């Protein structure tokens, strides 16, 4: 089986993993921080939760764009090599 590395995907995965782990660990270790209301009367639990969902979408769009560019570059290189 051929496995191709995907550094772009793995980098973005690690970015999200750090943010998600932060959410889980704050809840597990110091849940009282989730009561804090830093913005417009919204507590950290809601702000962080919504952020996790929105960031997932943003990262997926970034990945879609950059991976598309990468695929185009790979295709043009392959075509160039064939000639």
């Amino acid at each position, binding site marked *: 089986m051929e496995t191709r590395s995907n550094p772009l*995907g793995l980098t973005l*995965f690690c970015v999200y993993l750090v943010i998600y782990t932060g959410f889980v660990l704050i809840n597990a270790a110091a849940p009282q921080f989730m009561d804090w209301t830093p913005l417009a009367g919204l507590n950290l639990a809601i702000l962080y*939760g919504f952020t996790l969902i929105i960031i997932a979408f943003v990262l997926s769009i970034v990945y879609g764009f950059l991976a598309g560019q990468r695929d185009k570059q790979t295709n043009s290189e392959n075509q160039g090599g064939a000639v």
Partner: protein
Amino acid sequence: MIYEAASEAVVLFFLFVGFTLGLSFWLGRKAKSSAGYFAAHGEIPWFVNGIAFAGDYLSAASFLGICGMIAFYGYDGFLYSIGYLAGWIVALFVVAEPMKRLGKFTFADALDARFNSRGIRTAAGISTLAVSIFYLIPQMVGAGVLVQPLLGFEHWQGVLLVGAVVIMIVVTAGMVSTTWVQFLKGSLLVIFSAILTWLILDRGFEVKSGGEDGYQFTTWKAPRSVLKSYDVPIPELGGRRIVKPEGAWKDSPEFLRLKDADSDRITYWFLESENGVESVNVVEAQSITKQTGQPDLVNGETLGTKKGEAELHPVGFISQLPNEQKSTGPVGLGSFFSILQNSKVVLWRSKTVKVSDDTTTTVYYQKETPGSHILRPGEHPRFAGIRGTNFWGRLNFISLMLALFCGTASLPHILIRYYTVKDEQSARKSTIVGIASIGFFYILTLYLGLGAMTSGAMDVTNSNMAAPLLARSMNTWLFAAISAIAFTTVLGTVSGLILASAGAVTHDLVNNFRSHPLTDAQQVRVAKIASVFVGGIAIVLGIVFKGLNVSYLVGWAFSVAASANLPALIMILFWRGATRQGVIAAIITGMTSSLGWILLSADTFQKVYGIDSGGYTPFTQPGIVTIPLGFVTLIIVSLLTRDSRQESLQTGSP
């Protein structure tokens, strides 16, 4: 609560189901080959596949379970939304493109691409079946829950109806029709949830002391001294008489049983005490008494809708708004939370008392809760551990969030959807569309759940009914539409699960053990027979597990999927040292350890076996132990069997 069918709801429901079935039969004509039946010829457009991902993934657990948990406990249900969505990051960045590149029909294709091993196929096939059946249970429970208020059916009739319709969909057309049903359902679910959210914001909040039936719950303030005066009329309690606690009631001093002033009807009241105060609040509760061979009693009267009979009152109301407002009018997306944060909401809790061998009484009592507690994690008993001092409670939480994160990319019915598009780019694009639609829906779940919590329409006995009842509190047609969509939600997910199981049986189990491979037509025939069989199992389990919250059950399925499948999938993609023995051992170890952990946990003892004190695991969620165990097993066994791997790679034998 007693549910009566509304004619417009029934009409809309049957139109919807009829259309879905018609579509299925029509599309079924095109899917005769195995490539068509199992993978829709790989010709599904990426956008359609992306929305179908949402249709496949947003199951009864998401729509009914999460909304219900939020409606009953607040933010804790939203933790599932966060975890379920986060799992798609693993799917997109790690699994999507290799899955498309390596597989053809089943999850086992990708695992087995390097080794061509009969053992890997068998293990992966069994794991697919185990995960799919675990995942089917909550879907079928959800189906029974939905049909009850919509058509006035019993739970088992609803389960049977869904089972029959789904088997028909899968048997007629396989992946083509399943995809379009899921596309239809995914689109409508997101659109109608957005409409419902808009209506919730437009309605705003209002202070009430009862639900939508207009019944006002009473609270008496009584001196503590009168609480021991039995069988005499007490003016502070409206002339009611206190029944002396006897038998099992002695162990529930938080409740007061009162006889009416003018009859012998007994009602139940909750004692809400404040420290250092001489008086207590005597707060009206609701009750159901079940007696063998006699009709159920609700609030001391026979269950029914006729005169002299009673049913439970709908609940869910705000008792206090900020600045002593009585109502807010329309609210914004942000102010919805900031207002609730500074309000008080009456939630309901329950306790069951075994009065005698043949009589049990469940008391549902009010618990006025500050909005700031509702909008933070830790209110639900399952998550309360994070606010306690017990280390295991915190570890249980981390374990669940890990399983949700790792589970999505390990669900066979999600993974096979990568085979329905033409190439890796389409797999990637469809995942992005899936994340967008699923993420949007999960944001809405918090509004829907909290909207249901304050709608005055909740059934205290059933959290799974929150979303449909919320819709009914708005408008009957909306209720009909939401119920029909929710029903299709179950159809879409169950179809996908049964198809994944049928594919595993056909390719990974039956075909795998034959000396001559099945012909194309035989493969489709075996899959159809397997669909009927798995559908039958799902119907039985859906009836048996009637009372459990569906989101909770899905948490189990995620744990089993993540433990059994993810270690093998990830290591095959990223570690060249993996051997076929290592992969087989990881799947079997992950599957059996997670299943065993769940079956031996205290939660299962209590909720499934009905044994209050029991369980052999330190906490309930297995993921934090069993997922790493899968990885460790694969690494150790692969290192021990490295020579045979090289041999098998050279010879190509299994």
